């Protein structure tokens, strides 16, 4: 086990990158990156979506090979041929896109490719025991080690992914947006784990778009822009936000929420757009009553696992409710039919972009118009030019980069993929928008823009129902806040009448697996 004695503030440098370049067909993802990481520090990487952060860490972890540049690890220049080599050298990575095998159990995933074994036989008992221990150390003893990973919710997968990285001997732990799927208390737990690592002298590279996290956990910050290092080794605690943001984006961005309108404009007949009554799915949520008026933004928050995503999917018809009713614009919605929901003017940006939202092999514009390409078609014939134009407008508003709508979505950075998911429903024609964690992985600049767009949509009469685990986001953007716990609504209030502390109190600390309401 790694055990480096803590050194004085000036700790040794474990990793130095000089002028690293990496190109993909048509894109120079890394264009001369400098980075220096010391033992026992949390080194944060900042940068807009598509700046090259994930590519950089993939170079470090042996998943990509750099075109040129030098990587010095523990004083030796290295060129990792494959991930195995990097792991052997003591670099463990938690990738942005979850790298788990759905069909294998939690324990098997954690020890994949380095199973405790005798003569090729897996020591299954030990694998399970050790996996259980690791999960316990991560604060999640409740995740069953025999459960198939594919059946876990996103947050639990993230924990397993962390468990896998921790199961390796490491002197450098790389974490690519580990907090994106985590809620408030989970992040605190993550930070506890990170501190535990740095206390042993393990270096951590931490990527996040949430500046407050970087302030809290980070020691130093390196900023990337367009594949280049624009600032290195800034102090994470003291560097002013404006400076960080301008280094990232090249301009100053007001990180503020758009103002709420004075009064919610009522629908013609004054009735709410969406009425949910007594909606129930056994084991997920129960007796949910909810309304959304047109022009209103309703934000749902709560712990991960509190059943918010399931609620959204049920309203949208992607799951069949066991009880209750959904009414849109006064008309009952056929249960369990997405087609009917879309016809009624509903749209949903689902939670998991890769599995639920994107056709990865298709271009950006075809993904953006996936839900309404028929709207651009004449007599069944599609109009690609019109689609591209519409998609391009959205891409511009959301600062998609590279702003090429013909690009295959797979080659986009995580945050840019998320923009495509949300962008799909901004194309118009939707009267009620369901957004599940719309800003996951989106950078600061684009996030502010996204808030503006959502508000403008609402102003134009669209009703928005949004789920977010970031309480400030819900409080800042939504007109009305709904707090869920264990599958039930525990509080609904106008955003102005409630503050962060109250929400967190309501949400209460709990575990990932808790929240199965006894219904």
């Amino acid at each position: 086990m790694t055990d480096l004695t803590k050194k004085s503030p000036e700790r040794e440098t474990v990793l130095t990158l000089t002028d690293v370049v990496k190109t993909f067909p048509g894109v120079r993802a890394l264009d001369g990156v400098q980075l220096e990481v010391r033992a026992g520090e949390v080194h944060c990487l900042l940068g807009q979506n598509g700046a090259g952060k994930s590519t950089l860490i993939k170079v470090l972890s042996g998943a990509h090979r750099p075109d040129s540049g030098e990587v010095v690890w523990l004083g030796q220049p290295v060129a990792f041929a494959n991930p195995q080599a990097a792991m052997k050298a003591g670099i463990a990575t938690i990738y942005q896109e979850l790298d788990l095998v759905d069909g294998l159990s939690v324990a098997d995933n954690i020890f994949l490719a380095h199973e405790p074994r005798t003569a090729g036989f897996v020591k299954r008992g030990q694998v399970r025991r050790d996996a259980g221990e690791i999960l316990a150390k991560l604060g999640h003893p409740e995740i069953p080690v025999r459960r198939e990973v594919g059946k876990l919710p996103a947050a639990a997968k993230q924990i397993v992914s962390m468990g896998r990285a921790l199961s390796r001997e490491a002197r450098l732990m790389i974490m690519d947006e580990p907090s994106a799927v985590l809620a408030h208390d989970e992040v605190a737990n993550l930070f506890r784990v990170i501190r535990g690592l740095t206390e042993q002298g393990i270096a951590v590279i931490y990527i996040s778009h949430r500046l407050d996290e970087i302030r809290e956990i980070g020691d130093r910050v390196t900023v990337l822009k367009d594949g280049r290092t624009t600032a290195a080794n800034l102090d994470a605690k003291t560097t002013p936000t404006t400076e960080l943001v301008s280094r990232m984006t090249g301009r100053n961005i007001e990180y503020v929420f758009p103002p709420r309108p004075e009064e919610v404009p009522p629908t013609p007949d004054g009735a709410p757009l969406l009425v949910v009554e007594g909606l129930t799915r056994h084991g997920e949520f129960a007796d949910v009553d909810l309304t959304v008026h047109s022009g209103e933004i309703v934000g749902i928050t709560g712990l991960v696992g509190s059943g918010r995503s399931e609620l959204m999917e049920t309203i949208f018809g992607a799951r069949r409710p066991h009880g209750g009713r959904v009414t849109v614009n006064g008309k009952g919605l056929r249960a369990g039919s997405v087609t009917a929901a879309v016809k009624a003017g509903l749209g949903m940006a689902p939670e998991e972009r890769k599995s639920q939202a994107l056709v990865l092999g298709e271009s950006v514009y075809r993904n953006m118009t996936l839900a309404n390409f028929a709207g651009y078609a004449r007599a069944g014939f599609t109009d690609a030019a019109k689609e591209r134009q519409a998609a391009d407008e959205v891409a511009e508003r959301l600062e998609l980069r590279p702003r090429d709508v013909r690009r295959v979505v797979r080659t986009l950075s995580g945050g840019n993929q998320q923009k495509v998911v949300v962008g799909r429903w901004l194309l118009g024609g939707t009267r009620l928008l369901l957004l599940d964690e719309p800003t996951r992985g989106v950078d600061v600049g684009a996030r502010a823009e996204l808030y503006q767009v959502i508000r403008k949509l609402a102003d134009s009469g669209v009703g928005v129902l949004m789920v977010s685990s970031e309480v400030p986001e819900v409080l800042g953007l939504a007109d009305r806040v709904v707090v869920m716990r264990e599958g039930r609504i525990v509080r609904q209030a106008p955003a102005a009448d409630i503050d962060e502390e109250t929400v967190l109190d309501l949400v209460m600390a709990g575990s990932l697996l808790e929240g199965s309401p006894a219904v």
Partner: protein
Amino acid sequence: MTDLKPATAPEQPTAAAELSKRQGWWSSDASESVRRNLGLVGVLVAIWIVGAITVPRIFLHAEQLWNNELIIFQQSAAIGVIAIGMTFVIIGGGIDLSVGALVALTSVWCTTQATQEFGPTGMVFTALLVGTVAGLVNGFLIAYGRVVAFIATLAMLVSARGLAQLISGKRTQRVNIENVAITNIAEKDFLGIPYLVWMLLVVGVIGWILLNRTTFGRRTFAVGGNPEAARLAGINLRLHTMLLYGLSGLCCGIAAIMVVAQATAGAPDHGDLYELDAIAACIIGGTALAGGRGSIVGAILGVLVFKGITNLFIVNNLEQEYQLIVKGAIIIGAVLLQQVNFSSLPQLRKSPT
């Protein structure tokens, strides 16, 4: 704090954007299928070169060559039509093993005495109807019965052959002399191009438009690329899946007419192993078995490659065992040749990723 490079002037055109502009369309993702198809054309040229070396009498003689190519095209017609339907099914994330058996069933059904009494139109109508209905049955089992496509269409394969045997009494059913219009399809031509080839062309063009220019085609790509995403975007997954198999069945019906015309008869052993040929042609043509990606032109080129190889062997009078051995090698060679990334040729000094 060491400041390396101060943030350079805001909003300078990024290197990445420039680079992508410079390389242009050729290396963009959109051109990928075109590049693949060029690879296949390269394979066809290679076949021609081998032909020119081994049988110059045919391959270097304009009229002979033309006739020979027409034969290849005619032989490719039926399987080409089937491959077009198969392309839709595979892009949509499925597979159809029953095509050969459906050709048999349809060919038999449209050549029974009872059907033949309705004349050529009746026969064509029957063929299209039987093919489509059988395809829809496949689709129903898969989409609504949730039977894996491989198994559902395998079951259809088995049953349809049995039914074809039952209907025909295991006999070859010749086309009556009154229905010569049917057999004429394989004998007559229009503007020097045989009807069979026209049919392939027409089905190909319609298929191409349907796949690449209509909402139906868009849905097909989405359904195969990510079914869950397609569903959540409001596409009726099941209905669409069912229609895809119906379309494949319709193509089998068309192919059955072509086969009946060529063989001058319907028979329960028609279309033997067509499923393998059609799927292989699709895959060689760049259609991904996993779904979500594929090309009509590629599928037709794939069929031409396979039939071109067969033709090359026959005009060379090669013995069967050598035909087989060499055919396997050529298939591999064709695929490898296709992988040569033409766009990267001028940049070979750049190390590949």
